[in-house]
């Protein structure tokens, strides 16, 4: 996980963001969100699977960022994209092909 100018870039390295992994993931993000970033790029290219609990962590994170908070997801696998569509959260998170492409919509 690394930070760039103005936008927090987070590379998630849990291949499965499921209910078993969610508490540790939540804890990792809490540490990164201490200074309340308003714009975040989440790189999910190493994530093969997310369930509703893992997704709940992302939703909580966005809520924690406040009204101006925006999260862009990059590298989502077909399974992750499908989950976002099913839950209609594809309208809550910005989806981009790459980290660099995510900077414009977040600006």
């Amino acid at each position: 996980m690394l930070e760039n100018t103005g936008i927090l870039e987070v590379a998630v390295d849990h291949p499965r963001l499921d209910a078993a992994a969610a508490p540790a993931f939540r804890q990792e993000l809490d540490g990164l969100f201490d200074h309340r970033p308003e714009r975040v790029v989440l790189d999910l290219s190493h994530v093969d699977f997310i369930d509703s609990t893992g997704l709940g962590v992302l939703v909580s994170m966005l809520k924690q960022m406040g009204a101006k908070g925006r999260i862009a997801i990059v590298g989502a696998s077909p399974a992750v994209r499908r989950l976002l569509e099913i839950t209609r959260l594809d309208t809550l998170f910005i989806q981009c092909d790459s980290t660099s492409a995510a900077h414009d919509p977040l600006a």
Partner: protein
Amino acid sequence: MTRSPDGPAEISVPARLIEVRRLAEYLRKVCQTSGVDEVAISDCELALVEAANNVAEHGHAGRPEGKMTLSVQIGDGMVRMELRDRGDPVPEGQFLRRGIVSREAPRGRGTGIIQACIDVVDYARKDGINRLIMTKRLD
């Protein structure tokens, strides 16, 4: 893990969240061996994980000694998953209703996800055993 020549493939694991991924891996393996396409496998995996999470988190809350058993049968153009456990019953009508979940809600999407991924969901409890049957058509 067991598999009779014509019967369903079956696996039992402790009813804990950390074990759910073993069910998912097993389901994947059985489906891949039978040539099920990746999109259908992903849907089945997601539905199974949501159902098994529910068993571990709610059905067996505070009772880690329980187990859950997955039977998978593939044929006639469908994947049939049966999840059995002896935990607390699922609230009546749980799999029939699809509540409205706020976009900002961190929880409460499991049942809706199962309904979106699976064609037929059937739940019954008999003799203290919960049976959740999820059938996915492969057309």
